[in-house]
């Protein structure tokens, strides 16, 4: 103890700055400012955390929850996180996905809207086609059969090697996906109209891929130049397929075949291009009829601006013969594809405005031609997809969710925090120098 006191006696009184009191006052002001900022932060967090928690809960809510499909979607924020990007997390099973180039990538981008309203992006490479949602809304199937799990954010290749081609339709049980696999060379062949054609010497194959195992099953080999549409009958026994045939793709073939063996039941070849299979949900729910989309107006070749002048109608053909058996339903706008049925109404992706064909919506078409808008989108949305289970049994008209500003990748948070961190660092340095 004596040594301690002797050692302490060597210390002369500390020199103090003249404005010690002033430094204390400044510290007090900074502390009060800090308290105020902290209070504001707590308030902001208190308001936003419940919303954030709702996004996190989305992963455990089933996609077929009633009311899961919103009546309208919004464009995502520029900083919106991709599916599975930390710390935003996955969106959960999809209520829908839409495609737009109005994102930070300035190219076609998928935007998933989860069943609980979380918005996440799906990056698409330049020129990459749009993918499909599995009927349960859990997976996004991208080109080459990349399966993106929307409940975990993990992506995997379905089969050992990518299968390149046009994904056409899921089987009614959701286990198989029909794909038109291209066999063309990578050299573009031009027809007489100077438009690139599928090489008729190398017809495409129709393949069913098992989504659990990735196993490929050839349904039809070498019957079409390429496949443009396919629809599975509700019982899963038959497939209606449409595609191009002949030199320069100048013919069109519609065929109904056995889903297992590929044996054709009937086939109609035509050179007319004013009628086409309505899409992946062309079969009516009872399996007796096939929906066709037909038009009056400029047929191929046709200037793009005149294509919007076409007058469209929905027709129903006998599934056993292909003959049109009902009165046509007039369609006021521009239909894209029949994607489902609800209570006897065909559900279509559709552009209501002829002057703005890029404004894509989802509508139910009544037998008298009136349309009920199920999902509306902002300008710039080129395509949208709703999982088949929701189309069949889900509810529509949910309050439109807003994309959360907090569902951002880590770099966005760092970008925002960086100026504050630099400021903090400068202030600390100045304080250290002063003391």
């Amino acid at each position, binding site marked *: 103890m004596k040594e301690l006191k002797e050692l302490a006696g060597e210390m002369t009184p500390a020199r103090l700055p003249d404005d010690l009191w002033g430094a*204390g006052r400044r510290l007090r002001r900074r502390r009060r400012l800090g308290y105020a900022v902290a209070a504001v932060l707590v308030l902001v967090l208190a308001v936003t955390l419940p919303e954030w928690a709702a996004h996190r809960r989305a992963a455990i809510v089933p996609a077929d929850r009633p009311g899961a499909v919103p009546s309208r979607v919004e464009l995502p924020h520029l900083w919106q996180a991709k599916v599975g990007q930390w710390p935003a997390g996955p969106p959960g099973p999809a209520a829908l996905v839409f495609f737009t180039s109005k994102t930070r990538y300035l190219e076609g981008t998928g935007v998933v809207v989860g069943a609980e309203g979380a918005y996440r992006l799906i990056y698409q490479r330049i020129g990459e086609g749009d993918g499909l949602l599995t009927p349960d809304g859990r997976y996004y199937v991208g080109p080459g059969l990349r399966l993106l799990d929307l409940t975990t954010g993990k992506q995997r290749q379905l089969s050992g090697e990518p299968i390149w081609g046009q994904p056409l339709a899921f089987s009614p049980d959701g286990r198989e996906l029909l794909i038109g696999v291209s066999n063309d060379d990578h050299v573009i062949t031009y027809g007489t109209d100077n438009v690139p054609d599928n090489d008729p010497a190398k017809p495409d194959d129709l393949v069913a891929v098992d989504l659990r195992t990735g196993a490929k099953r050839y349904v039809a080999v070498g019957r079409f130049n390429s496949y443009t549409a396919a629809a599975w009958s509700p019982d899963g026994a038959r497939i209606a397929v449409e595609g191009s045939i002949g030199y320069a793709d100048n013919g069109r073939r519609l065929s109904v075949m056995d889903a297992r063996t590929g044996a054709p039941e009937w086939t109609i070849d035509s050179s007319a291009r004013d009628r086409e299979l309505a899409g992946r949900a062309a079969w009516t729910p009872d399996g007796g009829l096939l929906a066709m989309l037909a038009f009056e107006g400029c047929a191929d070749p046709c200037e793009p601006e005149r294509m919007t002048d076409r007058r469209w109608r929905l027709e129903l053909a006998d599934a056993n013969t292909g003959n049109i058996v009902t009165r046509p339903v007039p369609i006021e706008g521009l239909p894209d594809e029949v994607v489902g049925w609800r209570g006897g109404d065909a559900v279509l992706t559709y552009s209501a405005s002829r002057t703005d064909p890029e404004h894509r919506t989802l509508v139910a078409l009544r037998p008298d031609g009136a349309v009920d808008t199920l999902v509306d989108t902002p300008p710039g949305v080129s395509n949208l997809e709703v999982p088949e289970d929701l189309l069949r049994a889900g509810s529509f008209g949910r309050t439109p969710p807003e994309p959360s500003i907090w569902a951002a990748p880590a770099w966005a948070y760092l970008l925002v925090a960086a100026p504050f961190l630099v400021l903090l660092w400068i202030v600390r340095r100045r304080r250290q120098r002063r003391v």
Partner: protein
Amino acid sequence: MAAEDSFRDYVAARLVGLSRAAYLLTGDRHLAEDLVQQALVQVASRWEKISAGGDPDPYVRRVLYHQHVSWWRWRRLVDRPHADLPETAVADRGRDVDTELTVRQALRRLTPKQRAVLVLRYFEDLTEAQTAEVLGCSVGTVKSNTRDALARLRTTAPELADLREAR
């Protein structure tokens, strides 16, 4: 202005004691000054509240010792070289230079908390309970820190008989 005046009076009265305690805690004259200045700025920022509570010493002590054991100060202690004391100061007072060097070096080998416990107990003459209150820990922690600090001193500086006996 009354608050500022009373603060100045308090600093004038306690500066020597605070400076010496800080010196024992840091083992470095400059760091001790730094520690005292920062502690007093903290005290000045809350002076009205502190002085209204009566004796400011307990609060001031808490600030000083907490600043010392905080990670920030600890890091700076480690990072900065320890200045040796000027020999003239030692020679003028005619003390045993070897013993003081030994004390200083022995203190440096203690953790900040062990050093704080020793200074509070044997320089400021506080009880274990008062020491625990200043450091914001239990009496048991004070005891164990004291025991560990003395054990280390016994190893590193066996000639410090007084400290050993003080146990």
